[in-house]
């Protein structure tokens, strides 16, 4: 370790946007690189600070409460949204989860009809509904490295719809996904991925974690990277439990939780 310069992760708004155990995702990125002899350097990007775009290989933005998300959205419009978009054009990778996924899109419209601007890096618009979409989720994803099943938990009031500039991250096998209607889940645009799935997302989905890491490594060092396999038998056991939960849910009638 330490022979190669570290991969650089920019964690956007870690204090404000961390409600669904987002630090689990950071821990997975960190460990899975370390086990392969790479360092990860995490820089935190709080409100009010500019992003040093030339020094980032991967962005991460997690989920937050509405109130915090609103504050973050205001801060994004200062400089950050433009910086993140230009970094995306330069091949920087990005992972956006739950509230972070909504903010990565063009706009989030609250129940009262207030429109909150986002980063605009994913071709997604989101509108809040009075009911939340909650529960275990399984999706099937076809990434450039092959098909994979992704497991997680969703809990969102927003209904997201994709424009032509993004493709879904996956097709819903069980659960609600982007809007509970079109069977899409998440969004992909170039090297940016967004999803409603937490749990956290990456511990149970090591293939997806490695896919994200490969993008970051390619940006850092150039060329193509094949990551050596790891002993993922705990991950596989956790995926079996998750698959049993979503299989049960597929058989049961779907429900929605009314919050007030």
């Amino acid at each position, binding site marked *: 370790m330490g022979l190669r310069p570290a991969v650089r992760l920019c964690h956007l708004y870690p*204090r404000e946007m961390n409600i*669904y155990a987002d630090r689990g995702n950071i821990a997975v990125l960190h460990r899975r690189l370390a086990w392969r002899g790479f360092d990860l350097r995490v820089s935190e990007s709080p409100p009010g600070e500019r992003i040093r775009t030339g020094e980032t290989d991967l962005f991460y933005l997690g989920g937050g409460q509405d109130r915090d998300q609103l*504050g973050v959205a205001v801060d994004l419009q200062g400089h950050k949204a433009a910086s993140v978009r230009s970094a995306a054009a330069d091949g920087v990778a990005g992972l956006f989860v739950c509230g972070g996924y909504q903010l990565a899109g063009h706009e989030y419209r609250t129940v009262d009809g207030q429109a909150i601007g986002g980063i605009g890096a994913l071709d997604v618009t989101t509108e809040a509904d009075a009911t939340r979409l909650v529960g275990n989720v399984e999706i099937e994803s076809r990434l450039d490295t092959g098909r994979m099943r992704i497991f997680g938990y969703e809990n969102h009031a927003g209904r997201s719809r994709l424009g032509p500039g993004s493709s879904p991250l996956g097709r819903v096998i069980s659960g609600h996904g982007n809007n509970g209607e079109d069977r899409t889940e998440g969004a992909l645009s170039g090297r940016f991925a967004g999803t409603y799935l937490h749990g956290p997302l990456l511990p149970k989905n090591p293939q997806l974690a490695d896919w994200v890491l490969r993008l970051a490594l390619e940006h850092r060092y150039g060329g193509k990277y094949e990551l050596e396999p790891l002993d993922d038998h705990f991950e596989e056991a*956790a995926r079996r439990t998750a698959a049993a939960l979503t299989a049960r849910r597929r058989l049961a009638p779907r429900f929605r939780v009314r919050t007030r």
Partner: protein
Amino acid sequence: MIAVVRLAETVAGSAGALSRRLRLGGGTSIVGMVLNRLDPGAMERLAAETARRCVVLSGTNGKTTTARMLIACLAADGRSIAANTAGANLASGISAALLAAKRAGRRKDRNTGQETGRTGESVGVFEVDEAALNDIVRRLRPGLVLLMNLFRDQLDRYGELESVTERWVELAGSLPEDVTLLLNADDPALAFLGNGHPNTVLFGMADDHGNNRELSHAADTIRCRRCGEALSHDFVTVGHLGAWRCDSCGLHRPTPRFQASRVELRGFEGLSFSLLDSSGGRPEAFDVSVPIGGLPNAYNALAAASAARALGVPPETVSGALSQVDAAFGRSEQIFLQGRTLRLLLAKNPTGANENVRFVMSEESRLHVLILLNDRTADGRDPSWIWDVDYEPLLDRLDSLTLGGRRCWELALRFRYAGAPHDSFSVHERLPDALDDALSATPEGGTLWILPTYTAMLELRSELVRRGVAREFWETA
């Protein structure tokens, strides 16, 4: 009409007996569900019949223990109590408790041949689910509402913390003037709920008794509710609780009427503090000591003692009652099995689990730990909260670690990504296997610390009953 009401109560009572006979559980909620279905006005009517006044308490953590402490104080003061002690904290549990209190009263009267009426005042003490609070307060019309804390918990069920807070703001604004609103001043989400309410009383910690804690990763309300800037803290106690202030707009923790000072933690043995009551012209102080350990229980004892004082229980009665109180089941409970001491510490959210980790580490240098994670409704369907718990400091202190419960593999991943090697802990999907393995890893005469979620604790309890070392929970509650 009276006949119909009687019938509803009888049918509901039978359902509870049947449920206990079939070993479906304590049966308390079944009674209430049947009763509320057959007679939707049952709770209001029973409350009027059985309790002169009601106390309702809510908060993310400490409800059951605090209710238990308050009941001890009121009972020591000679009052008769109706309470939902089995942790059944929705409308059904409260109706069932009121019905049970009414029947117990009637039986007693029949035995003594006396007229209804007792020596002491009758008081209802009810712990209430955070999301059900508004509805239940509207129906019960309590004389005192105690709000303890709000931590992130079961996001799948309650939604975000913010939405619970908003509902409580609504509730505080709609309380009749004569209702005492007792609030934890150390929680910036609660301290100002009573601003528009004339009869508001605050409690909080006087100092941090030299603990020098910092905000944990899982700290929730870290921003000023007035201006949105980050809060500063003169000291931090549990989670985001403490002496907070906003350097931006000047808002700060108001001075509580009831303050706990010189808090002394004595591990599993218990804790003590001096309770200052700064009301009116002459402040008074009295010592409180409880045989239940851990800083969260200092808050529980402070809340219970404050409520008891607000209800007119004399200080010496409060002191005496609290010194005798025992832990609610699964909270700081001790069981002996195969020459080992099992110590149970329940948690179902990051703040509670962090406190348990701290507590365990303060007790012994080398540790044997069994963690049980379930994902049923009462645990939270979404187990992602374990990633917000700071388990890392435990790693260097573990002599053995066993993981179990329905989501044991999520725990395995939590520890794998904390840096624990694959072979440094064992994982079992079946609870009896997890218990056996953890017991065999613990030397005779040693202590096994068990950290279960709520339903995992119930399962563990059943397993211990099968092994002849514990009683069913409805017998102990």
